[in-house]
């Protein structure tokens, strides 16, 4: 379980997060929606400490820390239980698909190489990339790279996986293969926080939807309720704009 309290973040004079309270239960799939600049990616990056929060507290199972004063060592300990999938994949360019998956196991977690490779093959198989294990990232399509990146993120069996707009850098015809893999993970009970613009996917796969606007969470609800009976005018406006076929009304 992860709980973030009163998370604030500014870039210069631009206040991007204005006191976010956010909670993820085990096994839950949360879609974070909102227009560009609403702060959804920044929230994810603060929770994984890629950005340093200006204020806030985080509770992650047995860990409890102030997000400003947390030490590098404690960040490292928490990250050992997090997976992160980037918009731009960020596969290690000097490593094969297989090595991308094993590095976190052998180097960071000291798992013996044969065992790590076995796990990595299993993960690559899960994302349908086992036949590309020895390819370098640049030899793979965007969708394939992102699937390897997902295999890398789940290899160490993390308690939560963050997805930062995982399909935004992909051609429309490649998003499907990535979303399919994510759906599979969700069905297996993986705890996931997904920042996305894929409305249909959020509706089909997420348990809960969090809607952000202007640095605050405006509305959160079960996925079905969120799409079928949005409570806020702003939410409705967003839903109408982002899905043409949206036809629910308050």
């Amino acid at each position: 379980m992860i709980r973030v309290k009163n998370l604030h973040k500014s870039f210069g004079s631009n206040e991007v997060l204005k006191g976010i309270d956010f909670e993820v239960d085990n096994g839950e799939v949360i879609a974070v929606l909102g227009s560009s600049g609403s702060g959804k990616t920044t929230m994810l990056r603060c929770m994984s400490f890629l950005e340093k929060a200006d204020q806030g507290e985080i509770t992650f199972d047995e860990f409890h820390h102030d997000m400003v004063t947390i030490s590098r060592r404690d960040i490292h300990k928490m990250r050992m239980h997090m997976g992160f999938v980037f918009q731009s994949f960020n596969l290690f360019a000097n490593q094969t698909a297989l090595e991308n998956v094993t590095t976190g196991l052998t180097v960071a977690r000291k798992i013996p190489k044969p065992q790590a490779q076995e796990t990595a093959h299993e993960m690559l198989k899960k994302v349908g990339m086992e036949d590309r294990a020895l390819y370098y990232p640049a030899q793979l399509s965007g969708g394939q790279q992102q699937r390897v990146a997902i295999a890398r993120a789940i290899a160490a069996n993390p308690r939560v996986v963050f997805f930062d707009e995982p399909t935004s850098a992909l051609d429309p015809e490649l998003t499907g293969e990535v979303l399919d893999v994510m759906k599979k993970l969700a069905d297996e009970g993986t705890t996931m926080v997904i920042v996305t613009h894929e409305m249909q996917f959020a509706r089909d796969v997420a348990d809960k939807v969090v809607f952000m606007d202007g640095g605050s969470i405006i509305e959160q609800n079960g996925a079905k309720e969120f799409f079928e009976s949005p409570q806020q005018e702003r939410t409705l406006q967003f839903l109408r704009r982002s899905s043409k076929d949206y036809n629910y009304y308050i």
Partner: protein
Amino acid sequence: MSGKIADILISSFTKILLPGIRVTIPLTILAFILATVIALALALVQVAKVPVLSQIARIYIWIFRGTPLLVQLFIIFFGLPSLGVRLEAFPAAVIAFGMNLGAYNAETIRAAILGVPEGQFEAAALVGLTWWQTMIRVVLPQAFTIAFPPLFSSLIGLVKDTSLASAITVIELFTTAQQIAARTYQPFALYCEAGVIYLLFCTVLTWLQSWLEKKLVRRSPEND
């Protein structure tokens, strides 16, 4: 007359080539190894923003890039003995060339590390790698590909710069040419011959560079 010059050139060729192989090449290799170690250390403390050490690195680079190599050679060989540090000519030359080139290559390596996309650092941190593990496993291998051509150029430059070691009594390729020129009164022919031998060394290195680059390129994923 020209027959005599030809005789001198032929008989002096091996005499100049031998110290080239025995002294110039080992001097180049040892100095380059030292330079690489220094450059890596200077670049890493700066990238990691280690307090004090990164400032020391800046000052080191400022001094060694801002003063002539010949002055550095003289200080290390002729100057240090008055402080009680007495070095043989050859190790003094290795140290001077290594320290000087280290300052230049530090900037090359630093730029190459900064040329590795930020996302690589972030992804490494999130799979649980420490800063060192990130450097060794992810960043330096990629930085090496970026830094390879300029570093190799600096190696080729070093081959020629080692001729300055003649000024501190190292008997290397150029010193030998100088001695023969003084003995035979044929400075034009002999210095040209020395130049040709340097050119020969550098040509071999240039071939080596393009061969190695091809291997690097084959390994690097961008070209498939």
